[in-house]
């Protein structure tokens, strides 16, 4: 563990802003803000957007590096911050500012836990289609900053598609906003889009406005099992060319059944995994869909016949509500992380028709390096490929570095790209977390200089070349 030291003046100034009770500087508390074995010198918990601005302004004047944090479930994404003086804990920013069910719009502070929000929305049979990893803990601001996706993106898109506006604080301590609270708006630049997935390197998100969605009627699922990835992808292509618009569509590899049935998995979803819906040595294509009785029947019928045409070895229609298999799809990453001490997750993006080659290349790369793996691919062309070494040894590190580099080259050949959002802290500096240098790196640097000229916000989490 390394930790940064700051002068007592800093804590006293922070206490002036937020009250002494909301500044932590003892080791036990700071340990909970660890990022890749680095601890901050202090953690500060502002209670308002104004306090956030004051803290950042102060940090900027002292050149203290600051990392905004939410529920701290996604701080492992990307490189560790190169400097980490302050953790700016947003969890006291936990108010729902406005919810207008009749307009289907919502405005919340960044630290609101998604689960709490889900309850508020459920009272009006509405929801946010964001079943992201660690859904039961994650905060709204954290999931936006982390730029994570969810199975529901198949139908609803990602947060980018339904985020209406935002308030944020720049690296100079300026509180500003963009967008608005209506469902259609082109007034001014969409600064809020830049904050999505920026990992807190451009600003501290203090408030977000969303479009909400009516809860779908009855939902069901279909799981079709296949001997090969090729068969499963064939079914994916049939669905894409049909009139069906499922809510979720994932392909899971052999080995996922074991992960989903593990003790680790029950930590994220208590209900037991139904037996025999996916098998540990087969591939499976899983879809979720919604609608009235006739629609559900139509989906079941069409999906079953498409599965047959694609050479299925067996199909299960899961009736009633969102079954546990769904929760586990959502939590694929946390479950994979809990399944090995050195889990490394490669996120590959390719055109949908290139998924077969991408999966084959990844599988080859893992197996030729003797690495255990499991994968979940979204129908839209995103593959989460989990490498599951059984230890942190140097030998494994070398194998993982080789395998991930082969995967990244493989994706590049397919006109796609691959990043490594999650990897053991001690290996990160030897991995190309964000892939090879990108041609738009210079443009990204321009953005960074506008928002954070002193590079005090989550410095270098976005890493080379930023």
């Amino acid at each position, binding site marked *: 563990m390394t930790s940064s030291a700051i002068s007592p003046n800093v804590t006293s100034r922070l206490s002036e802003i937020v009250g002494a009770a909301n500044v932590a500087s003892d080791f036990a508390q700071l340990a909970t803000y660890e990022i890749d074995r680095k601890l901050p010198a202090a953690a500060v918990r502002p209670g308002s957007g104004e306090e956030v601005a004051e803290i950042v302004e102060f940090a900027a004047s002292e050149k203290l590096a600051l990392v905004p944090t939410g529920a701290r479930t996604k701080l492992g994404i990307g490189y560790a911050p190169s400097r980490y003086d302050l953790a700016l804990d947003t969890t006291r920013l936990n108010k729902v500012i406005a919810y*207008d*069910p*009749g*307009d289907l719009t919502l405005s919340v502070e960044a630290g609101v836990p998604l689960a709490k929000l889900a309850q508020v929305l459920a009272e009006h049979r*509405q929801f946010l289609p964001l079943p992201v990893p660690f859904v039961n803990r994650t905060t709204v601001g954290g999931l936006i900053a982390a*730029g994570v*996706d969810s199975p529901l993106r198949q139908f609803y*898109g990602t947060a980018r598609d339904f985020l209406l506006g935002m308030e944020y604080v720049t690296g100079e301590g*300026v*509180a*500003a*906003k*963009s967008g*608005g*609270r*209506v*469902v*259609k*708006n*082109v*007034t*001014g*630049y*969409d*600064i809020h*889009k*830049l904050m*999505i997935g920026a990992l807190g390197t451009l600003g501290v998100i203090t408030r977000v406005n969303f479009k909400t*969605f*009516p*809860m779908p009627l009855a939902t069901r699922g279909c799981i079709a099992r296949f001997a090969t990835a090729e068969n499963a992808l064939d079914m994916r292509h049939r669905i*894409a*060319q049909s*009139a*069906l*618009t499922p809510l979720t569509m994932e392909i899971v590899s052999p080995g996922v059944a074991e992960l989903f049935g593990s003790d680790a998995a029950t930590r994220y979803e208590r209900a037991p995994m139904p037996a025999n819906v996916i098998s540990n040595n087969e591939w499976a294509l899983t879809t979720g869909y919604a*609608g*009235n009785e*006739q*629609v559900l029947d139509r989906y079941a019928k069409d999906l079953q016949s498409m599965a047959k045409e694609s050479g299925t070895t067996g199909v299960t229609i899961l009736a009633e509500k969102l079954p546990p298999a769904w929760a586990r799809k959502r939590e694929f990453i946390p479950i994979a992380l809990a399944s090995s001490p050195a889990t490394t997750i490669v996120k590959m*993006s*390719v*055109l949908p028709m*290139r998924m077969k080659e991408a999966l084959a290349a990844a599988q080859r790369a893992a197996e030729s390096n003797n690495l255990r793996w499991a994968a979940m691919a979204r129908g839209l*062309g*995103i593959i989460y490929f989990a490498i599951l070494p059984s230890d942190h040894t140097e030998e494994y590190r070398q194998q993982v570095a080789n395998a991930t580099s082969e995967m990244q080259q493989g994706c590049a050949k397919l*006109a*796609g*790209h691959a990043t490594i959002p999650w990897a053991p802290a001690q290996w990160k500096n030897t991995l190309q977390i*964000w892939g090879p240098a990108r*041609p*738009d*790196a210079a*443009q*990204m640097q321009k*953005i*960074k200089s*506008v*928002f954070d000229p002193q590079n005090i916000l989550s410095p270098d989490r976005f890493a080379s070349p*930023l």
Partner: protein
Amino acid sequence: MDSQLLRDLKSLLGSEAVLHRPEELMLYEYDGSVEVARPNCVVFPRTTADVLAIVKLANQYQTPLVGRGAGTGLSGGALARKGGILAVFSRMNRILEIDIENQRATVQPGVVNADLSAAVANAGLHFAPDPSSQKACTIGGNVSENSGGPHTLAYGVTTNHVLSLEAVLPTGELIRIGSSALDSPGYDLLGLFVGSEGTLALITEITVKLTRLPEAVKTLLAIFDTLDDTTETVVDITARGITPAACEMLDGWTLRAVEAYVHAGFPLDCAAVLLLEVDGVAEAVQQHAEEVADICRAHHAREVRVARDARERDLLWKGRKNAFGAVGRLSPTYYVQDGVIPRTKLPATLRRINEIGVKYGFQIGNIFHAGDGNLHPLILFDARDEAQFRGVVAAADEIIQFCIEMGGSITGEHGVGMEKDRLMPLLFSEADLDVMRNVRAAFNPQGLLNPDKIFPSKKGCGEIHVRPLPLAGAPSA
């Protein structure tokens, strides 16, 4: 204009691709808005290399440069407010690649919106953003304005369908942002550039998603005797969590203008109609159409007609999409506002718009994207009369003020351009605007590209420019 610059442009592009005589420039003083500004010359690039070279010349001669698609924009975005070079993309109109299996297309910016959808219709696909001007407007214009359309309600606006751009920065750098595979790593530059109204870069190539056409569609026309019943119906449809593919409202006055022009069979004696569409798998469409019709009847719809076939459906849509043209036949000039309000505020807002019309003595027609609360009050006036023009601006400002009081916004799809820059401080603080200005400066450091747009000038804001205005004419489509 520097005659050496003209010579350089001509030797670069050929003299048939450079216009500079006053009579040639007149057409380019206007777009679809009521603003006017004359460029010093108009050029027609054919390739990205042409665009790069034009940008270099603009830098060399320190001349303002503005991009333009079809010039259908409704906020003066494509006007050369400070003169200079107007680069018109109409000759960069090739569809470069269509990838049916992956549902992608790559186009040059001058491709007309409807042409792309037509090119992929056989494969059961379309480009979902469908501005009412889609037979004329270009995809480059759509990307710059982040345009919407009647079917935006269910399918999203342009930004939800763009995957990657090639563009030339005003500094002369050629950049490529985004990627045809999803989730390009790093900052979402694409999200910033789409909707930046031609102030950050000239766009030279665009990759978009193509969307599958629905299996079944039902188009309904619900006819009402009061405006309140019509707007309450929209509120109710929204609140019940039904998302039609489209939900457009036309008030009685507009309807009569449209009917005289299009002969779509719209009733002439009603207060307003809703043009509603539901689509999806056949089993869902039937039920949703019935639900929507029931809600209309619960709010006293006099009649709910369902289009029986594609011909009837097309006729109803023709009425909607030609409405601005129809109004253009009645009044020398009209001014279209583009305010947005939360949908529950529709009844109060339409009442208020009527009051404002009465107060200022203008006929105001309403034809708009009701389902997402995006108003388009059309204020009719005679531009030759300066007092009337002042009155129109005052009336429009009052409408916008009301939208903002309702928690809304000043533009839902037409952009800020040179028309609403002075209204920006009603929504944004100086700090908000400064961040945006700094972002512009990062890519457009000298402000050569599309100057004096979106952001109010820091000094002397609030002043209204009054100039002689064009006759409205009926914009095509």
